[in-house]
């Protein structure tokens, strides 16, 4: 692999990692500042897709571009891509599962609320 291609791969990967760092900081501040559980679900989604999926793809590109890692860098790039895909599928599934369970079991308070469309669809009961 020529040197220019390595530099291009590393540069694109570093741009993706910087995007991931920004999303990560935003998600952590949201996780600390948002008022209740159902608003913090948004923070988990930002932190898992923007903060973990995008920098994992970036890390895969960096690992593919680094010549000093030896021939095992292709193993590392493939492992990072597999981790990214698994994380992209499982984070959304886990978030939906725990949100549904907590809403049905009334395990978290729903205090600062604007509208509850799900309760209206089910017959207009108030919580």
């Amino acid at each position, binding site marked *: 692999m020529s040197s220019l291609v390595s530099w291009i791969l590393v540069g694109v990967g570093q741009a993706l990692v*910087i995007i991931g760092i920004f999303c990560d900081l935003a998600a*952590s501040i949201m*996780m600390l500042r948002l008022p209740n559980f159902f608003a913090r679900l948004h923070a988990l989604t930002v932190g898992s897709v923007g903060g973990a999926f995008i*920098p994992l793809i970036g*890390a895969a590109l960096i690992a593919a571009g*680094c010549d000093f890692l030896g021939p095992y860098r292709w193993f590392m790039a493939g492992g990072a891509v597999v981790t990214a895909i698994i994380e992209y599928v*499982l984070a959304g599934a886990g978030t939906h599962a725990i949100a549904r369970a907590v809403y049905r079991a009334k395990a978290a308070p729903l205090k600062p609320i604007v509208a509850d469309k799900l309760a209206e669809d089910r017959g207009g009961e108030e919580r």
Partner: protein
Amino acid sequence: MNLATWVTDFIVFSMPFYFAAFALYIARAIKGPTVPDMVLAVDALSYDLAAFLVLLGILFRAPIMIPCAIVLVLWVYALDIYMAKYFEAGEIGE
């Protein structure tokens, strides 16, 4: 400029931001008022830790340490599902 020093310096300078994010997640995990908040914080912490472990593997020049991130992501999802089943239905096998 050498490629190895460039990549190493980039990863070293990106570390304090990750540390700040981890500290805020741990603060939420410690003071969360209900149990689902703590589960959420531990989830987000582990997903970001997986990305951080891959970058750390590049920093250490150890490509053989990549499957740790896959295993961590998979089993934290399992923790999420257990808590959901506890709150919703009761037994896990039903």
